[in-house]
Each structure stands twice: as structure tokens, then as C-alpha cells.
């Protein structure tokens, strides 16, 4: 305990260093655990959504056009002996209402906490109109009870209740029990209904997996940058206590005891920092979750609420990760303590020689990591390998930084003419080892920032151009009643009325939508194609070819000229590939005629209307008078705004994490400069004694920081651009299924460089000011303590 007291007393005398260590671990934990909390919340919501009506992986019977199934058809099926149960799915006040029939629903369809609860679902009738919702869902206009098994924004009720609330009498689809009477023929195709297996609908977890992997990768990067601070602080604490440790050992404290005490000390600090980090992470997650929930709803239709729950298992995992992180950050320092000779080396030069060897090893390791990244990028397939390539790139760049900086500073040293300048450059080179971890953190944060902003910027530019081309019509009207009647209403009032028509199908094993385009200049002239044969549009409308979106092309490995089996007996040539940003599903476009011939029962669910833009308000009023609700009318501007809004939300959290990581790196710089400042006196005191003013020396300190920041930024820029290329061409292709052109934004780089200079300058300013104000007696102590 005496030894522990001596070790711990170091922190009492240096509270700033303790704060740096706690803050590093805390920030690392906070950013990581925030991402994990968001992911966990989303996954819980997916699980609840997947469990609802689907716990037994039950198949469904639905109409090919997804329209309601007449009650008479349902009754006919039941009379034939098929075990089917009706479900009405409807929207009501922002909720998705699911009406089920408790008498015919197969076991497991209704969550057990509803069936076995105080209010028995089976005793409910349509008159009570009780709707079960999750605790985070608000439905003030309904008579509600809560169920923990339901996802957000979803209500489960008796089918009569939902029919009364929605006005829809016919079932949306029928749930098919797993075991059907053996004497009956297969149910598929009966009464023209389609049997859809549970797997046909894309699984939410699978769809959103890449989005969450993206978040996890950034969380990991933030965690790594935080660990740099912790590593830096722990390393510095060991360096500063080197003599104390030697003295303690000389006075009889065994080495093993010193190492155990230091490990215990680190464990205690990491536990405290971890708990603080979890609290901070929870707060960050609570702030970011509503945006992420909006993204997941908009992009994938995933029912994630914006409210964050507290999961003790999440907290325990986050704490464990912090402890593992602290162990990683402190392992090197503890290893150095364990290997530290009890006597100081006789030759001070030995340390410099050792550092020279470290630089050589760093150069070799960094080059190997960069080569691995290049190899993975060129030959690797899959999202994990794409992220591995990025990890190798970032690791390689970080490890290469110290040897690169040392080499560059050695090269430019002869350029300095004045003695002070020569000393400043030589001294900067000498400081590289002490600052290398903070500079690595800065490099990673800058590269991540450049990479992410380039990726998001490129994506946004491409997306905005694309959406403007794609939304070629002035008005979109969705059929609420008879589509033919709506078409007849629109045609005399518009230049052209183009049907919006399609159905969901599995194409080449991929969940896809098959849709049709009318032969009109709107599409021929405006529809953006990524690749196409010369007469693609002619082939499409001649019924000889199909277009596929980029997602289906990548997932199914299609190329222009391939044959595509669209439907039984219908193989078409792939004549074009088009961008389809924001769509998680594959898509096939057919000419209107061949679509109608293949799917004669499918009616348009809406119309794209070409009209003089000045006439849009008048037509909207006419449609209202016709009986269309506002929800079923959307003009081009509203559609465009909605799409861009969804897009912006998608990358909101990525941008937020990137900015937070940069903030953490700035903090790492500040801590590194502050702590190194305490060890700088022996370097600057001789210059002061030789006639340099303290103010000039202080200015030199700031300039040194700016030189290092500039060199680090110069290396971060190419790394960031390569990172952007990898994100655009490897990650996005795998995660979202689309490839994008890379756009460069030099203006953003200048802003970021200014920010890096500002952070480094400010970080160096405080220690510099302290140096400028230092009492001469303090500088004289340097000489008094020399042998």
C-alpha cells in the first residue's frame, strides 16, 4: 500500500494529466457506446417488428397488385378447408394498424404478453376498439393498451377494430398456417392469389446491416482516436514516473509489485472513466437517435422510435470494451515498466539510437499496411474486406507519420539560415516521438473528415442531379379509388398522364420491384442511365429488353447484354443500368406494353402528370374537388425536398461522428502539448541563457505546432482522398449497392486545414504563454539540477 500511495500521489500532483487520461478513455467509450446504443435500439426494434405476425415464419397469401383480398375469397378458402387467417393492414394517424382475427390466427401470431395479459385479446370485440401499442408510441385518439412485444408506431388490434378505424372491410392479406390439411391441393395460385414466403420480404436486419456496420466502423474509429489520448497520457505518466519507479525499486519494491500496482491503478481509472463515458455516450445517443430513426424509417421503412432505452447489458459491454481499450492503451507502457532497467542507461545516445530503430520499424510496418490496403481494395470482395482495407490504410498512414515527419524535417532543416530557425527545426524533429501519438490521432481525424465529407459531398451532388432528372413530372397523383377513373379525370387537364405501375417479385433470388415506363419523352430524354446499349429505349418499348437498377446489377452480377428472367417464359436482354439511390430493393423496368401483357391484372397505383408548371396549383385544386386527399397528391418540389431530406438524414450521424472525432483529436493535441511543455524546460532554458527572449521562445513553440500540423495535414489529405475513394467505390457499393463519381472540394480542405491549424495553434498557445510568463528562477533550476 505504501508503494501504491507513492504511485497514486503522482496524479495528485498532476491533476491535469489524470484529467487527460480520464477524458481520453471517457471520450473513447462515449463515442463507441453511443453508436452501440443506437445500433442496439434499432436492432431491438427490428426484432420486435420481425417477431410481429412472423414469429413462425408464416407465409402469406396476397394479391399480385397488393390490393385487398375480397372477404368472399377468404370465406371460400376457409370453406375449402385451408387454414388461413385474415389481416387488415392500414394507416391511421401515423400508425401502422394490424388487425388480426384471434379465432383463426395461427399460434404465435399474437404476442404472448397480449394473449396472457390482464386484458385478454380474445375477449375483445370491435366495440371496445382497444388497440395495443408499444410503450413509446403515442396514440391519443385511440383506446390503447401497451405491449412490450410491439415495435414503435405499430398498433395491433382485433380485425373488426381496424376495419372500423380504417374503413377497409377486406383483408390486406391472409396468413397461411404452416400445416395445411393433407387432402387439399397446394394453396399457391388458388383464386389468383400469390403465396409469399416469409423470406421473400427483405429482412430489416439484413437491409439495414450495412448502415449499422457503417456506424460501427465510425464508432470504432472514434474509439481508436480516444485510445490515442489514453495511450499518450499513460505513456507520459510512465515517462514522468520513470525516476520514481527506479527509486522505488532501488528502495526495495519488487518489479512485479510495481507492475501490478500500475495495472491496478489503470484498472481503477479505466473503470471510473468508463462509467463516465457510458453516461456521456448515452446522452450523445439520445441526441443522435431521433435523426437515425428518421433515416431508418425513410430509407428502409424500419420502425425505430426516437426514444432511447437503457440496457444494463449494453452498459456492461461498453465498460468491458473500455477496460480492454485501457489495457491496449496501457499495455505498451506497462511492458516498458516491466522491461525498464533499474539503473538509467549509461549512454543517453542509446535512447536516440533505439528511437531510430523504432522509426525504421514504423516505416516498414506502415508500408506493409498500405500495401495490404491496396491488395484488399484491388482483390477483396465484401463489406468486411472493404472495411479491413480502410483499417489497413488508416493504420498504415498513422504508423508512417512519425518516420515521414522526421524525414521531411531532416530534409528542410538545411533550408533554415538563422541559428534560431535551425534549432527550431531540429528541435521539432526531436519532439516528433513525444507528439507522434497526438499527431497520429490528428491525422486519422483529418483523413476521416476529408474522406467522409468527400464521400457525402460527392453523393449529395450526384443525388441532387439525379433526383432532378428522375423527378421529371410536375405532379404525382396516387389512386385512392378507381385508377381508370382518375386517369380519365386527369387526361383532359394535362399534357401527358404517365402511369406509375409495378409489383414486387423475386428476380434472380433478389427481392425486387418490377415496374413499367410509358413511352414518353419524359423518360427517353430525362431518365438518367449509368450504362446502356445505343438503342436501349427502343428495345425497351419494343418489349425486347429490360433495364435494371444498379443494386440488382451488383447483387445479381448482371452486365449489359445478359439475359434476365423477369417472369416465367419472359427472358429479356439487359439493355441499360440506371442509378436508383435510396432504394434498398432491386428493380427491373419493362416497357408498358410487355408489362401489361405479362401482368394483366395489375393496375396503376398512381400517375405522373406532365403539365405546364403554372397550371399545377389549379390541377391540385381540381383534384381536391374530385375527391383526392392531399396525402395522395405530391408536386415535384415536395418530392424533391422529401428525397433530399431523407438523404441528408442518412449521413447526419456519420457527419456528427466525424466532427466529434476531429474534436477528440484536437483535445489529444492540447493534452500532448500541455504535458510535453512540462518536459520542455531543459531544451529551452539553454537558449534563454544564451540570449533568446522567453517571448521568442514561446512564439517558436507555437510555430513548431503549426509546422507539425501543416505536415500532418499534407499527409492526411491524400489519405483522406484514398479513404473517400474506398468509401465510394468499395463500401457504398457493398453497403447500399450503388457506385458514385468522386467529386473534389478544395474549399472544404482549406477550411479543414484552417481548423487543424487553429486547433494546433490553440493547443500550443497555452503552454507557450506559460513559458513566456515563466519566472527566471524556474528556468535557472534546470541548470541547478544538472550534474
Amino acid at each position: 500500500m505504501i508503494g501504491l500511495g507513492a504511485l497514486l500521489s503522482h496524479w495528485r500532483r498532476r491533476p491535469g494529466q489524470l484529467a487527460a487520461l480520464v477524458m481520453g478513455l471517457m471520450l473513447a467509450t462515449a463515442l463507441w457506446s453511443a453508436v452501440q446504443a443506437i445500433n442496439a435500439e434499432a436492432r431491438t426494434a427490428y426484432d420486435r417488428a420481425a417477431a410481429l405476425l412472423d414469429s413462425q415464419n408464416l407465409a402469406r397469401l396476397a394479391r399480385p397488385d397488393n390490393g385487398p383480398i375480397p372477404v368472399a375469397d377468404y370465406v371460400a378458402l376457409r370453406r375449402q378447408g385451408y387454414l388461413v387467417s385474415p389481416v387488415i393492414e392500414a394507416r391511421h394517424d401515423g400508425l401502422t394498424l394490424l388487425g388480426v382475427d384471434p379465432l383463426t390466427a395461427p399460434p404465435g401470431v399474437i404476442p404472448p404478453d397480449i394473449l396472457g395479459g390482464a386484458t385478454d385479446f380474445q375477449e375483445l370485440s370491435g366495440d371496445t376498439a382497444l388497440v395495443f401499442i408499444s410503450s413509446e408510441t403515442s396514440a391519443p385518439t385511440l383506446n390503447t393498451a401497451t405491449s412490450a412485444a410491439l415495435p414503435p408506431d405499430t398498433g395491433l388490434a382485433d380485425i373488426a377494430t381496424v376495419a372500423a378505424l380504417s374503413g377497409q372491410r377486406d383483408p390486406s392479406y391472409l396468413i397461411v398456417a404452416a400445416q395445411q390439411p393433407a387432402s387439399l391441393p397446394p394453396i399457391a395460385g388458388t383464386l389468383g392469389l400469390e403465396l409469399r414466403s416469409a423470406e421473400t420480404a427483405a429482412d430489416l436486419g439484413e437491409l439495414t446491416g450495412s448502415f449499422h456496420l457503417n456506424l460501427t466502423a465510425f464508432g470504432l474509429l472514434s474509439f481508436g482516436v480516444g485510445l490515442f489520448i489514453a495511450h499518450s497520457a499513460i505513456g507520459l505518466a510512465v515517462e514522468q514516473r520513470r525516476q520514481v519507479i527506479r527509486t522505488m525499486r532501488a528502495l526495495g519494491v519488487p518489479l512485479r509489485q510495481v507492475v501490478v500496482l500500475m495495472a491496478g491503478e489503470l484498472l481503477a481509472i479505466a473503470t471510473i472513466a468508463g462509467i463516465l463515458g457510458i453516461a456521456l455516450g448515452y446522452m450523445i445517443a439520445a441526441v443522435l437517435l431521433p435523426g437515425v430513426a428518421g433515416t431508418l424509417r425513410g430509407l428502409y421503412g424500419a420502425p425505430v422510435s426516437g426514444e432511447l432505452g437503457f440496457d444494463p447489458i449494453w452498459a456492461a459491454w461498453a465498460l468491458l470494451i473500455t477496460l480492454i481499450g485501457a489495457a491496449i492503451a496501457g499495455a505498451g507502457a506497462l511492458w516498458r515498466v516491466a522491461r525498464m532497467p533499474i539503473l538509467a542507461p549509461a549512454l543517453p545516445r542509446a535512447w536516440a539510437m533505439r528511437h531510430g530503430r523504432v522509426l525504421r520499424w514504423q516505416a516498414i510496418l506502415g508500408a506493409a499496411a498500405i500495401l495490404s490496403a491496396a491488395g484488399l481494395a484491388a482483390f477483396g470482395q465484401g463489406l468486411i474486406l472493404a472495411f479491413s482495407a480502410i483499417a489497413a490504410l488508416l493504420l498504415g498512414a498513422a504508423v508512417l507519420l512519425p518516420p515521414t515527419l522526421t524525414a521531411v524535417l531532416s530534409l528542410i532543416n538545411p533550408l533554415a539560415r538563422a541559428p534560431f530557425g535551425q534549432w527550431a527545426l531540429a528541435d521539432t524533429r526531436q519532439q516528433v516521438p513525444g507528439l507522434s501519438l497526438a499527431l497520429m490521432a490528428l491525422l486519422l481525424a483529418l483523413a476521416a473528415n476529408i474522406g467522409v465529407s468527400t464521400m457525402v459531398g460527392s453523393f449529395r451532388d450526384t443525388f441532387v442531379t439525379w433526383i432532378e432528372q428522375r423527378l421529371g413530372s410536375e405532379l404525382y397523383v396516387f389512386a385512392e379509388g378507381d385508377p381508370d377513373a382518375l386517369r380519365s379525370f386527369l387526361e383532359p387537364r394535362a399534357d401527358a398522364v404517365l402511369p406509375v405501375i409495378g409489383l414486387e417479385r423475386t428476380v434472380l433470388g433478389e427481392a425486387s420491384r418490377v415496374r413499367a415506363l410509358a413511352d414518353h419523352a419524359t423518360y427517353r430524354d430525362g431518365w438518367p442511365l449509368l450504362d446502356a446499349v445505343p438503342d436501349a429505349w427502343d428495345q425497351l418499348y419494343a418489349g425486347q429488353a429490360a433495364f435494371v437498377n444498379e443494386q440488382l446489377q451488383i447483387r445479381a452480377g448482371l452486365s449489359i447484354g445478359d439475359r434476365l428472367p423477369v417472369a416465367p417464359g419472359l427472358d429479356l436482354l439487359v439493355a441499360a443500368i440506371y442509378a436508383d439511390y435510396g432504394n434498398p430493393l432491386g428493380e427491373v423496368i419493362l416497357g408498358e406494353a410487355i408489362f401489361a401483357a405479362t401482368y394483366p391484372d395489375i393496375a396503376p397505383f398512381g400517375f405522373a402528370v406532365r403539365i405546364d408548371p403554372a397550371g399545377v396549383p389549379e390541377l391540385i385544386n381540381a383534384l381536391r374537388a374530385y375527391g383526392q386527399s392531399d396525402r395522395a397528391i405530391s408536386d415535384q418540389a415536395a418530392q424533391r425536398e422529401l428525397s433530399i431530406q431523407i438523404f441528408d438524414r442518412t449521413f447526419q450521424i456519420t457527419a456528427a461522428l466525424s466532427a466529434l472525432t476531429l474534436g477528440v483529436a484536437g483535445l489529444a493535441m492540447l493534452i500532448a502539448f500541455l504535458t510535453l511543455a512540462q518536459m520542455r524546460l531543459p531544451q529551452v532554458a539553454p537558449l534563454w541563457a544564451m540570449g533568446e527572449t522567453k517571448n521568442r521562445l514561446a512564439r517558436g513553440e507555437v510555430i513548431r505546432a503549426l509546422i507539425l500540423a501543416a505536415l500532418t495535414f499534407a499527409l492526411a489529405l491524400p489519405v483522406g482522398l484514398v479513404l473517400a475513394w474506398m468509401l465510394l467505390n468499395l463500401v457504398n457499393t457493398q453497403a447500399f449497392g450503388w457506385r458514385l463519381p468522386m467529386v473534389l472540394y478544395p474549399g472544404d480542405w482549406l477550411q479543414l486545414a484552417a481548423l487543424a491549424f487553429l486547433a494546433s495553434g490553440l493547443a500550443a498557445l497555452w503552454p507557450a504563454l506559460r513559458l513566456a510568463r515563466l519566472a527566471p528562477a524556474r528556468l535557472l533550476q534546470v541548470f541547478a539540477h544538472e550534474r
Partner: protein
Amino acid sequence: MLLKLLQRSILHGAISRDGLLLSDVAGRAKLPMSKWEIDVVLTVSNLAKQFAGAASPVFSDVCFTLDAGHSVALTGESGSGKSTLLHLVAGLDHPSAGEIEIDQTGLSKLAEPELARLRRDHIGIVFQQFNLIPSLTVAANLSFQARLADRYDPDWAAALTEQLGLTDLVSRYPEELSGGQQQRVAIGRALAGKPKLILADEPTGNLDEATGDSVMASFHRLVSETDAALLMVTHSERLASKLQHRLHLSRGRLS
């Protein structure tokens, strides 16, 4: 034990005229032999040290013994290996050849934790650079090793504090003290556990002459009170002359 020592001395060298020092041509020294009822604290036999990569050893065939209550100055030119020899005796470094026994325990047989325990329980070290723990107060520094060894005696600590003139400084930190005051704390720390052997490496090397004399006066007085054996490395003739005996290390040999 005494008989064994006498036999060894006779074997290796001749008794000097004053009867205090036994030495042989190889540089073996036995300190002191004025009384037969002495307690041998330190025995150094055929000790040699050669650093890795060095062409020749720093010293070789170094032999001497040191008894309780006696002091010896180890002198020599810069680089002659005085501090290296002291570090070997303290178990801080390992010899290339030979053996060191402290209180009849051979250091070569001890593992690092046992060496640490031996230092903690039996050796007090005074460094030229003081090597106080900067984050501990004077009182905590002074009692540090004694408490580690579980030999802390508050009365003795109080007496040391008073005799070293540190009474008003106990709550201060090392950086708030002058060099002389810091060295007094280091001396107090070395003596607080009443060790059998005190090793001092140029204890006044960082002090001016007057301060050094004052510190050494307190040091000698307190060492004699504890009946410890003192081995002091110094290049100061004046300081060496104040100790009972002297060993000179030159060109790798002890004389």
C-alpha cells in the same frame, strides 16, 4: 564465521601493521579487523564487471569485507567504476563475475523480488541526485522505505527529522526544498529503517562545500548511532579523510 573470515584473510593476504586492513596483491581488502567480535555486513569476492560491447572490464578481482559500525570511502578517478561497484553491492546491477554477500546472503542466488526485499530490509541508499519521490511530502519520503520494510519507528523518525533540521519542512514537497534540504531528506530516508548497510553515491556532489560539510556531519553522527556499515563513493579527498577507512579504485583494481 569469524574463524572462517580469518582463514580467508590469511589465505588471501597478509595482516597489515596496524591490524585494521588485510589486503593482498590482488586488491583484496578486509575492513576492519581490530576486534574479533565484529559482525561482517558485506563481503565482496573476486568481483568483476564488464559492460556489453566494452573492450575491457571496468574492474576485476575486487575483494573486500565491511563490518558493522565502520565506514569506508571508495575513491577513484571519474569513470573508474566507483558507482558501478556501488550499484553491484546494492543489487541494482549484476556482476560479470564474483560474489557479493550481504548479511551472509549471496546476491547472485537471489531473484529480482528477493533482491528487492534485501534492499528494502537491509540497505539504505543515498543518491547524488537525491531521488526523492516528487509527489510525496518530506515526511512521506522520509518514512517511505522504513514503512515498506515494516520497520517504521515513529520515535526514530521524529529524532531523525529533528537532527536533520527538517522539522519545519515535513509537509513540503521536494521541489520546494533546497539541494541541501533534499539531501537531508534522502539521508533520513536511508536511515529511517535502521538498515545494516548504508550506501552513499557522491552524497554531497550536488551541494556546496559548507552545505556538504553540514549534511555530512549529520550523516556520520546518525550512521554511528545506528551501528550501520557505510560504504561511500566520493572523489573528495576531504570527505574521504573523515571516514574510518579508504579503498581506491584505479585502472580496474582496488588498492
